[in-house]
């Protein structure tokens, strides 16, 4: 049994809730995701064209690259948020992708007028579903899992940056989607808090198909099964690096450090190419 299915059974949905439920059968692993023919022009510039990206089932794929190369745009395209972008996004199980995606951004995006627990239940609320005692219990369990037991009644303004991002992670997990898109989720945190949250995220996201956009090579190498560098204009993806071992990998692993050097080298080349 994978961690995902374990999480799934712990997760908020003990009954089939909505049409967005992946399948009626219990899943052991999230399906993969295939992006093909992605195209986006911005301000007259072609950011990418005919771009393809495979997100292998149940694994974390990291995307690095210079600022402005189109990483976030690609992520937004997959999330269905980039309205001017073209491209096809398909799950390897053949079912539609819409409604099966959870999104976590660089800002925590906590709503200041809602308490922490209500923020975690936001998806349920905005879909017009009833927030039941079960929903609240599930939210509290997730809070416990992200190390925030006891703050369910607090307002976001009372939390530190790390706690806020933990709450955002809990909200992402509450959605319980097979596909998770993360856009520099930990970049605003201090180094130690960031390492903590990376470990937590790797543990809690195991089994899901994750795309992680990041500026931090070490973060990519610690968390991802595959690391892509996006470069050029229009942008392409290089052959992925596949760090050894299972995430989260220890930050002082010497193999990671040599891979980090390789990755920095690629990023530097990408940066020159994108100028």
């Amino acid at each position, binding site marked *: 049994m994978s961690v995902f299915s374990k999480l799934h059974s712990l997760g908020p949905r003990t009954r089939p809730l909505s049409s967005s439920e992946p399948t009626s059968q219990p899943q052991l692993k999230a399906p993969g995701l295939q992006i093909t023919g992605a195209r986006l022009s911005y301000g007259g510039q072609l950011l990418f064209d005919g771009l393809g990206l495979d997100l292998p089932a149940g694994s974390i794929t990291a995307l690095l690259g210079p600022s402005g190369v189109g990483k976030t745009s690609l992520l937004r395209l997959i999330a269905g948020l980039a309205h001017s972008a073209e491209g096809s996004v398909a799950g390897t199980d053949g079912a539609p992708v819409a409604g099966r995606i959870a999104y976590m951004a660089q800002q925590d995006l906590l709503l200041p*007028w809602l308490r922490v627990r209500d923020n975690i239940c936001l998806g349920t609320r905005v879909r017009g579903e009833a927030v039941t005692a079960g929903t609240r219990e599930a939210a509290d369990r997730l809070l416990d899992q992200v190390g925030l037991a006891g703050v369910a009644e607090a*307002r976001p*303004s009372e939390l530190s940056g790390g706690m806020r991002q933990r709450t955002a992670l809990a909200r992402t997990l509450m959605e319980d989607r097979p596909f998770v898109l993360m856009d520099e989720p930990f970049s605003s945190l201090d180094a130690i808090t960031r390492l903590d949250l990376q470990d937590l995220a790797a543990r809690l996201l195991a089994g899901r198909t994750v795309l992680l956009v990041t500026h931090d090579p070490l973060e990519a190498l610690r968390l991802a099964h595959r690391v892509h560098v996006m470069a050029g204009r229009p942008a392409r993806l290089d052959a992925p690096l596949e760090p050894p071992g299972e995430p989260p990998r220890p930050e002082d692993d010497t193999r990671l450090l040599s891979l980090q050097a390789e990755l920095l080298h690629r990023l530097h080349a990408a940066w020159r190419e994108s100028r």
Partner: protein
Amino acid sequence: MTRFVRPVVILAGLLAIWQAIVWLTGAPDYILPGPAEVAARLWSDAALLLFHAAVTATEILLGLVLGAVLGAAAALFVVQVRPARQWVLPVLVVSQAIPVFALAPLLVLWLGYGMGSKIAMATLIIFFPVTASFYDGLRRTEPGWLDLAQTMGASRLAMLRHIRLPAALPALASGLRVAAAVAPIGAVVGEWVGAARGLGFLMLQANARLQTDLMFAALFVLAIFAVALYFTLDGVLRRAVPWQSESLESRG
């Protein structure tokens, strides 16, 4: 402690300056009555002042409620109905070029000498600040919140209800604060133009009869009411929109 002492000191200082001006200029009572004369008037004519104050207060409060409801509704309408933005918004903006005071005689002509024309004045004067600030708040929702709600499968209406509306409440609250500050102007101007009751009417009457102390007394009652209205509303809004000051502090 200083919270209560400071207003008292300020008030005492202002009264002292006032009294000093009366003594230094030797102005007669009908030009500038001293604080003592005005206080005496407040005491002797308390019933009269209260009667007219009640009329003005009713006009102000009804105008405030009507203006706030209509203003908020207009902002929602303009935001939700896209074509309205192009058609209604310019009309709203241009309508503000007409001074509401210039409309006062017309309103009295149309709605009569009673409370109706004054409530309409207050409503008109309040409408725009409420509409403008709420509209602004509704438009400036943090885009990340909307993205998040969209990936969660929220409908347009759900986004309005759960994200944009609450996010715009601090802006609406500032609009309402401005409204509370200007509402008395609308009511009093209406009363000056034509009325048989209200503090504005009382002031005009007293002015014509050189009862300057009564004029001051009426002005004093109006000021007390306006200040009380502002602070009451401010307190209610602070309680209803508690995250506003927090977010300002954390950003500042």
